[in-house]
C-alpha cells in the first residue's frame, strides 16, 4: 500500500495561545485513570460474548477459550461484570 504523506502542519505559523491544537493526539487513555479493573474467571467463562456486546469502549478481546480485556482502554465501569450471566467477571480495585 502506498503510504500517504502529508505536509506537516506548521505550528509556528499560529500563536501558541490561540485555538488549542495538537499535531499528535493526546496519548492519555482511559486505562490511565481507571480505579477498578475486571478479572475473568476462565473456568466460568463460556464465551457467550455478552460482555463484548455491552462494553461501551469495546475493550473486550477474544482468547482461545475465554474473553479478556484490553486494559489500556478499559475505563473500569464494571458493566461487563454486572451483565455477565455466568458471574465470571469480578471488579477489583487498582493497586489493591
Amino acid at each position, binding site marked *: 500500500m502506498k503510504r500517504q504523506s*502529508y*505536509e*506537516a502542519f506548521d505550528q509556528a505559523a*499560529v*500563536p501558541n495561545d490561540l*485555538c*488549542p*491544537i495538537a499535531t499528535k493526539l*493526546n496519548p492519555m487513555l482511559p486505562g490511565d485513570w481507571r480505579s477498578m479493573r475486571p478479572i475473568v474467571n476462565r473456568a466460568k467463562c463460556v464465551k457467550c460474548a455478552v460482555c463484548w456486546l455491552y462494553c461501551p469502549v469495546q475493550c473486550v478481546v477474544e482468547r482461545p477459550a475465554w474473553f479478556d480485556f484490553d486494559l489500556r482502554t478499559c475505563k473500569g465501569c464494571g458493566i461487563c461484570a454486572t451483565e455477565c450471566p455466568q458471574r465470571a467477571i469480578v471488579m477489583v480495585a487498582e493497586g489493591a
Partner: protein
Amino acid sequence: MSAVLKPKTKFIVCDGNEAAAWAVAAAHVDMVAVYPITPQSSLVENLAKFIADGRITAELVDVEGEHSVLSVLHGACLAGARTYTASCGPGLAFMFEPYLRTPGMRLPIVMSIVTRDTLSPQTVWGGQQDAMSVRDVGWIHMYCESVQEVLDTTIMAYKVAEHRDVMLPVNVNHDGNYLSFGAARVELPDQHEVSAFLGEKNINWHAALDPQRPMAVDPLTGGAGGAGPSMFVRYRKGQCRGLQNALSVIEDVHEEWGRRFGRYHAPLIERYRMDGADYAIMTIGSMTGAAKDAVDAARDRGARVGLIKVKTFRPFPARAVAAALDNVQAVGVVDRSVSFGWNCGPMFQDTIGALNILPRRLPAMSFIGGLAGADLTVEHFERVIERTARLARDATPEATVWLNEAD
C-alpha cells in the same frame, strides 16, 4: 474628494430582523444554520428566502435545535466558511454547550441575539436578560440602537471577529419587538464597497479540518499533572488578550466603516450632550432613542444632564466609561435586565466596577425597566433624570428603582 453617497446606494424600509438578513447577504456568508424562535423568526425566514431566491449562495442547514445549529457552524468554520446564525431566549439557552466552546476555539462566528426576556413567568417579549445572562462566556457583545445600526454592525462584526488579533465570536444584539419589528428607512451599502471593506476570507488559518494540515483540534488537556494546567492558563490568557484587543479593533473598524459609507456609529460608548453635564444617565440598546429625547427636553429646561450609551458591552469599555464620567457628580444606569444576586442591573454593576479607576467615589443608582416587552418612554427617562439630579445634590443613593412597577 470621496463621495459619501455611492451611485449604487439603495434605500429600503424594513425592520431590524430584515436589516440583519440584508447584512448577512452583503457579507457573503457561506453557511447559515438556523432554528426559528420568537422574536427572531422573521430574520431567518428572510434569510431562507434570500437563499431560495438565489440572492445569497450560502448553504442553509435546517437542524433540529439550537445545540446543533452552533455545532454545524463549528464544523463549517473549521472548514473555512464564513458563518451566521441568530437566536434568543430559550433557544440561546439550548445552545449553551457549544456556545461555551466557541470563543475558546477562537471561531469567528457572528450571531444575532434578538433579545428576549427569560422565563419565568412565560414571556416571548423583548428584554435583554438572555444576552446579559451569557455576558461573561467570552463572546464579544455589541448592542444596537437603530435598524440601520443593526445592518451596519452585523457586517462590521465579521471584520472584528476575523481580525487576527481578535479571532473571537461576536453577538450583535438588537432588542426583541422594538428593533426586530420596528420598521425604518435604511440604506443598503454598495456590494462592491462591502466586499472591499471585508477583504479576503481566511477563517481557518489557525485551526482547520483539513487533510493537508492534519491536527487535533481542541485536544484534552493533561489534568492536574504535567503540562496540562499551564497550557490551559496559556490559552485562557490568550482568550483574555483577544477580547482586550477587540476594544481597539472595534474602534478601527467603526472608523473605517464611517470613512467608506459615511455613517459613523459610536464603537464602544456614545457621549450624548455630555459637554458641561453635572450628572449623566446611561443606556444600552434601543431605549436610547427615548432617553435622548428626555435629555434634550431636560436640557431645554436648563438641567445639566448628559447621556452615555454603551454599544460594546463585552469586552466592557471600562476606561472609556470611567473617562466619560470623570467630570460628573452622579450617574443613573438604566438596564433592561436583572443581575440576580446583586439585585440591580448588570450594566450598573459593571459601571461601578469601572468607576474604581477614578480616584474619587461617584454616587450611582441602578434603574431597571423595559422587562418582558414593557415600553421605556420619555416619561420614564424623565423620572431617571430627576432622580439622578437629586443624587448629584445629596449623594445619597437608594436601592434599585423598577421603572415599570407602577405602569
